């Protein structure tokens, strides 16, 4: 089956999650792989896609894609779907991208399955495995026959492997926008954080801190450990509510769902609402001074101890061994 992949990119290069999804499209789809790349830097990003076996990339490198929220990109995605004619669209499970896909789905009458962690092809139908109810249950979902299939794929569900080396043909999309699509205007972009750390929902490793840190200052230690491991920083609601760390890093029921290869929680008790956002992580490590902390019941490795005593020598040790 030809699979169209919505490629997210940054500064002229596809993001890691995009390469992971392209790999899935190639290996599970078993047919051709098309890509759609939107916004500033799309052309430069598309030029790198041949390495992952993309034969055709639909590109819309237009200023309107970034000057207005969601709707211009929706129009471009719909145009790409028409031109590609691929019956399956895979996209990165990312909030702003999900908006674009949601609108496009209503327009082209596609079914949408979100947050896939595994994919298999059954005839012409892609079946997605996903966690439901905060990871309490697993499910397999699909789009009904005869409809375009849109499937959101979570970061790190697949390992990115270049392959299927091919010449990628770049097709510039012809997108005609009416004024209505320019009704949500982006007037500023504010970066509150210095770059350099991986994004939490994309990261392979996450170090998360909670109320046990005692104050905002404590997050310096969490950041130091994160940097030693090459990890992103997460937080419990107790920590974000207290203003110790920005809300966008909150993991859990009312925050974000993460499933990294490694989750390290320090000073986090592991309340059910926190677990609902991280319990499908592949390896869970917890540091807590309370031997009965609920997080220990799902931890692959538990350290009962004071995080202020344990983390500094741990950071030292990691730096030494790297």
């Amino acid at each position: 089956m030809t699979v169209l992949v919505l490629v997210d990119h940054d500064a002229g290069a596809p993001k890691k999650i995009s390469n992971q999804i392209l790999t899935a499209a190639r290996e599970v789809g078993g047919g051709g792989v098309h890509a759609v790349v939107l916004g500033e830097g799309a052309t430069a990003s598309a030029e790198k896609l041949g390495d992952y076996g993309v034969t055709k990339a639909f590109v819309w490198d237009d200023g309107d894609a970034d000057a207005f929220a969601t709707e211009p990109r929706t129009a471009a995605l719909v145009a790409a779907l028409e031109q590609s004619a691929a019956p399956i669209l895979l996209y990165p499970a990312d909030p702003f991208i999900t908006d674009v896909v949601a609108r496009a789905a209503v327009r082209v009458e596609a079914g949408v399955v979100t947050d896939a962690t595994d994919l298999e092809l059954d005839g012409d139908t892609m079946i997605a495995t996903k966690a439901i109810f905060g990871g309490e249950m697993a499910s397999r979902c699909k789009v009904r026959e005869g409809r375009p299939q849109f499937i959101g794929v979570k970061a790190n569900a697949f390992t990115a492997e270049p392959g299927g080396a091919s010449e990628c043909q770049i097709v510039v999309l012809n997108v005609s926008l009416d004024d209505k699509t320019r009704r949500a205007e982006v007037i500023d972009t504010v970066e509150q954080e210095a770059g350099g750390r991986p994004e939490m929902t994309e990261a392979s490793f996450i170090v998360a801190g909670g109320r046990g840190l005692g104050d905002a200052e404590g997050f310096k230690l969490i950041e130091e450990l994160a940097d030693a491991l090459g990890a992103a920083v997460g937080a419990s609601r107790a920590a974000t509510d207290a203003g110790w760390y920005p809300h966008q890093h909150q993991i859990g029921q009312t925050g974000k769902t993460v499933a990294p290869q490694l989750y390290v929680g320090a000073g986090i008790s592991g309340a059910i609402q926190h677990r609902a956002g991280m319990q499908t992580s592949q390896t869970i490590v917890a540091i807590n001074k309370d031997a009965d902390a609920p997080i220990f019941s799902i931890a692959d490795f538990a350290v009962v101890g004071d995080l202020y005593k344990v983390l500094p020598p741990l950071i030292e040790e990691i730096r030494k061994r790297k």
Partner: protein
Amino acid sequence: MRIICPVKRVPDTAAAKKVDPDDHTLDRDSGEAILNANDEWSIEEALRIKERGSAEVIVLCMGPEQAQTTVRKALSYGLDGAIQVTDPAIHGSDAVATARVLAGALADEEFDLIIMGNQSSDARTMLLPAMLAEFLDLPALTYVKQLDIDGNTLTAQRETPSGHVVVRADMPAVVSVVEAINEPRYPSFKGIMAAKSKPLQTRDLAAVGVDAGQVGLEGSWTQVVEATPRPPKQAGEKVEDDGSGTVGAQALADFLAARKFI
């Protein structure tokens, strides 16, 4: 100004979930059900808009009959009225079908703003705000952590992984909010008492102009093939630090090295 607040009835996170073995839908009577937590922030934001100027705020809920308790709960915060869409054919509806029903319920309503949570704790698709906006042909400002209204213009901070983007649109529009936007209040005793007599309209599918074939298990565009409890995770090794920190640190570093994380 007239504001619509869509809210969802969801199972309590702590409640044991039971899934029907045949159609894989959640048995919504098996545990305690509550107002979706993320909808408390949208209700609070609507109330603040109401208190700053004047606004009528209407709760909109698609759900079974029992969802009336959720609707009354939402009203108890001080909202003005409610529309509940209930119909046996709705059981098993996916995101598109839900958006279609909510849009149908609003087709003949006048409103300036729809303000909703960014995610439901059970389905957690995050699809609803954009899909509802698409059905109603409105702009959507989603994942909003700060909302300012000046005349007819909304200026919103949309949360990003490292900050936010500022986006502006005119009403009518759909807004979805994240937890950082405000600190929700508790309903007052007066509010709880008043909620019992607030106007609540119950509508069936015909009343919202949606065909039964477009909703429910059969009418949904997605299908659950299988749903199974995940085997409970086993606790692994536990090391007691001796108070120095080095014992715990060494053991943990060894573990991370053994798993090839370092």
